[in-house]
């Protein structure tokens, strides 16, 4: 049943600018991501053109050394972070809910917030060019080149902060997608039934959740070295610490970048060959294996750093191991073509092209996995050629997706001739750009003075680069022109497409489906909406008929009978009731909620994004003073204002009444979202604690305690803080108990007690810190301050990060206590208390480890 009538008065149409600032709908957010990512493609591409121009002949003078380094670093960072993954997530946002049968993502406002954080973090990066110089130490940001001693330009700090903002966007996004895909699938769509593109996105966000948390730890520590004066990356072992932390993120990152493209390749191969993916079960298993293995290969980027032979051998084995699932997937795609009826449409050309490029890239990767060869290839253009082949193969597949889903998103077909022309120029340009790099492999990376004998290859590459760049002009022209001149399409312009997005209109209506999608009958059907309880509405019978007329495909043949057999009743919630039946197989969907009216508009994500931009921009120059101070203050206040606004805004994002929810049945969306977030927070703290342990080993474990820490640093304050935090955890539990007993006074008292104990924790910590800052011993005549040595750096930053988590909790309590006084959180309405408790207990658990590690041992 449609809710069109709800939105006429408050949700602007897509032609209005205001709509795009307010929208939380996944399709709109998807379009925003796609368009914004393409802008960053142009920016990153322009930087690449500058580099290629400089590389035309050795010792060219187009860019100075410093400028060249900025160009090469910015090119890498922008392409990897601000172009390729966001471009993939444009499709993920638009298509995944459609493919799984959901109306939207689980947390629509957070989804919009992810987008605005992404956009503003990119703008922050652009701003960095104007702050002295942007980051110029390579996208890998090796230490200690990445600290102010060697990179004094403010723009360098800004880039680190922009990345932090970006990671916030990604983390929110992963929480959102994971909750959605586990809890909002259509009835009958088990996890193993996910379409391959959605499956690839699922694995991508799993990797993102954990990998980006490790990067966040590294970035926060780097930002702290920049802004607060800690000495992590300039101490003994600091250089290697960065390499570990960065590559632990960096390797999963390259699969995060590639997987969505892989998913699109599989979809396009299936659709355009008219054959089901060969060995689909093994294909999916291979993807899962790669996602897991991606976390245990990172040291192959570090073979020359002097790590011991045993660990090098281990990582050589795991690296070769990870190439094997890819072999299987490549063969699977090739065999899918056999006995097919292949149509060489633009999406298929790009998918096939991507496969070929990936095969070449993959083979050259095996070279790098043989350690003895890697010893020579390290830091040369062999690596550059290899990773461009594989990564840009991923991008190639994303362009396939652009053409594939263009008709769905716009309702019009692109120009096929122009599409093919784009493909030909693209493919020729690509290979002309990157293949000569193998011949010129001895050129060191990031260098523009190279051996004269290699100039021929570099010239070829430069020509190829400009050709590749020019091919995009064809693409942009095609995209724009077809918006108005393209032939209009119906639901499904592609024969043999199978997934649900092709069973609805092009473009889909706001609420996506003409009914509730269900696979209970063994194939997709749209069932009646349950009788709406409050807001009136149409006749269910008429709606089903309308639904049947609208999708017009074979899917509705079994629709009405299935609906009659497994009626959803009249929308009465009966938690725990499991719907079964249907002609084919057992459906394990759970009925856990009422469907209700959904909201689609909120200004707060934009406000928080803008505020974040101002705050981080201010922070970047905080050591310079001047306008940066008020900027930070304004930004910070606006962030708070935005979050409070968001919390107070009534916004309904109802869970589907019936959905497949395995394995998280009974864990409502918000609770699951909180748990997933805590999963990434574990890795964040793991990164901080791990850094401390690593640096302690590097500097001498006992030497650390005896020489680097003052005698005045005793256990007692830590023990007191442990008691305070434990008691506050107990108090939160008591608040929940009081809520179950409907005691308003109990709830308020417990929450206030929690708050007081938390404040006590902070005061005790402050006293301890001030004391340590002002000691005057022989070993530490000027006190033991944040930047005194590496031990003080790790102590203050790690316990400081924890303290910041406490402060965030206390702020949340300040919001909750007045509401408790007004009688909230009673009568079974205890979810907020529970979710807050999850967070607070997590903060407690972290302290349980910090206490012994930083005070006792």
């Amino acid at each position, binding site marked *: 049943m449609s809710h069109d009538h709800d939105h006429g008065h408050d949700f602007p149409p897509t032609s209005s600018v205001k709509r795009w600032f307010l929208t939380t709908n996944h399709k709109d957010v998807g379009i925003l991501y796609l368009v914004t990512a393409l802008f960053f493609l142009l920016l990153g591409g322009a930087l690449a053109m500058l580099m290629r121009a400089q590389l035309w002949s050795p010792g060219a003078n187009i860019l100075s050394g410093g400028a060249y380094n900025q160009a090469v670093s910015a090119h890498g960072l922008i392409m990897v972070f601000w172009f390729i993954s966001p471009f993939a997530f444009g499709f993920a946002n638009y298509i995944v809910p459609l493919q799984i049968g959901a109306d939207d993502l689980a947390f629509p406002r957070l989804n919009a917030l992810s987008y605005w954080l992404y956009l503003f973090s990119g703008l922050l990066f652009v701003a960095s060019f104007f702050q002295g110089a942007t980051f110029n130490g390579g996208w890998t940001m090796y230490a200690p080149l990445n600290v102010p001693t060697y990179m004094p330009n403010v723009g360098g700090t800004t880039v680190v902060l922009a990345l932090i903002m970006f990671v916030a966007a990604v983390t929110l996004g992963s929480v959102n997608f994971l909750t959605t895909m586990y809890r909002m699938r259509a009835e009958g769509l088990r996890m193993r039934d996910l379409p391959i593109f959605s499956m690839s996105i699922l694995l991508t966000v799993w990797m993102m959740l954990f990998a980006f948390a490790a990067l966040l730890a590294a970035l926060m520590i780097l930002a702290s070295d920049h802004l607060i004066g800690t000495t992590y990356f300039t101490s003994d072992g600091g250089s290697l610490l960065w390499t570990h932390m960065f590559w632990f993120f960096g390797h999963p990152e390259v699969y995060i970048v590639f997987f969505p493209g892989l998913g699109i390749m599989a979809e396009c191969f299936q659709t355009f060959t008219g054959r089901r993916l060969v060995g689909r079960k093994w294909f999916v298993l291979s993807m899962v294996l790669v996602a897991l293995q991606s976390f245990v290969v990172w040291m192959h980027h570090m073979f020359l750093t002097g*790590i011991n032979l045993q660990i090098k051998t281990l990582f050589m084995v795991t690296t070769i191991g990870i190439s094997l699932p890819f072999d299987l997937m490549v063969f699977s795609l090739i065999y899918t073509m056999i006995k097919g009826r292949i149509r060489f449409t633009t999406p298929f050309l790009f998918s096939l092209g991507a496969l070929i490029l990936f095969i070449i890239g993959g083979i050259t990767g095996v070279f790098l996995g043989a350690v003895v060869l890697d010893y020579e290839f390290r830091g040369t253009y062999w690596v550059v050629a290899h990773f461009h082949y594989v990564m840009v193969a991923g991008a190639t597949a994303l362009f396939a997706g652009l053409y594939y889903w263009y008709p769905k998103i716009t309702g019009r077909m692109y120009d096929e001739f122009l599409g093919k022309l784009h493909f030909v120029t693209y493919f020729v340009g690509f290979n002309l750009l990157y293949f000569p790099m193998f011949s010129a492999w001895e050129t060191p990376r990031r260098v523009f003075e190279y051996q004269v004998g290699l100039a021929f290859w570099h010239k070829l590459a430069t020509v190829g680069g400009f050709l590749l760049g020019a091919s995009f002009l064809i693409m942009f022209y095609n995209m724009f022109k077809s918006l108005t001149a393209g032939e209009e399409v119906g639901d499904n312009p592609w024969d043999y497409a199978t997934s649900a997005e092709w069973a609805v209109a092009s473009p889909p209506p706001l609420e996506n489906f003409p009914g509730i999608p269900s696979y209970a009958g063994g194939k997709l059907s749209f069932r009646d909406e349950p009788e709406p309880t409050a807001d009136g509405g149409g006749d269910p019978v008429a709606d089903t008929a309308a639904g049947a007329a609208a999708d017009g495909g074979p899917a509705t043949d079994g629709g009405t009978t299935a609906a009659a057999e497994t009626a959803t009743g009249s929308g009465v919630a009966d938690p725990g009731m499991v719907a079964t039946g249907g002609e084919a197989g057992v459906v394990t969907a759970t009925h856990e909620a009422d469907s209700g009216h959904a909201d689609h508009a909120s200004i707060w994500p934009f406000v928080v994004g803008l505020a974040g931009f101002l705050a981080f921009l201010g922070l970047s120059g905080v050591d310079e003073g001047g306008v940066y101070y008020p900027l930070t203050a304004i930004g910070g206040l606006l962030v708070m204002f935005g979050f409070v606004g968001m919390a107070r805004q009534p916004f309904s994002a109802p869970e589907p009444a019936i959905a497949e929810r395995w394995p998280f049945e009974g864990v409502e969306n918000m609770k699951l979202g909180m748990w997933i977030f805590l999963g990434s927070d574990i890795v964040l703290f793991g990164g901080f604690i791990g850094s401390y342990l690593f640096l302690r080993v590097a500097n001498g474990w006992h030497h650390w305690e005896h020489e680097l820490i003052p005698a005045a640093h005793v256990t007692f304050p830590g023990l007191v803080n442990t008691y305070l935090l434990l008691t506050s955890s107990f108090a939160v539990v008591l608040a929940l108990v009081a809520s179950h007993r409907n005691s308003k006074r109990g709830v308020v008292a417990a929450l206030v007690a929690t708050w007081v104990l938390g404040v006590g924790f902070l005061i005790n910590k402050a006293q301890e810190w001030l004391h340590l800052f002002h000691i005057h011993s022989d070993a530490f005549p000027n006190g033991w301050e944040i930047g005194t040595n590496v031990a003080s750096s790790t102590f203050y930053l790690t316990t400081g990060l924890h303290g910041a988590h406490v402060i965030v909790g206390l702020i949340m309590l300040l919001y909750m206590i007045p509401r408790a006084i007004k009688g909230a959180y009673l009568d079974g309405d205890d979810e907020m208390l529970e979710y807050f408790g999850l967070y607070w207990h997590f903060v407690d658990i972290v302290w349980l480890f910090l206490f012994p590690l930083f005070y006792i041992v």
Partner: protein
Amino acid sequence: MSRLRLYTAIYVVLFVLATVQAWVESAGYLDEAYWWAFAGIMVLSFAKAVVVAGYYQHLRWEPRSVSYLMVGGLFVALALTTAAAYSIL
């Protein structure tokens, strides 16, 4: 609610375990047998964490999958730390 007694008992246990950790240091075990004492202290921390997670965060009463999710994160953090530290030994 009987759970209240359970929660209170757990609070007491946590309090005691924390005190034991501090006592291990003050009793001089760290000086005598450093790595044994270290191991013992960390085991105690893990025990406390499991108890808080299991009972205060109610993991005992949630689907197993949630616990696996947290264990996964923990595993990732530990893998990075151990491998990195080992690589420079």
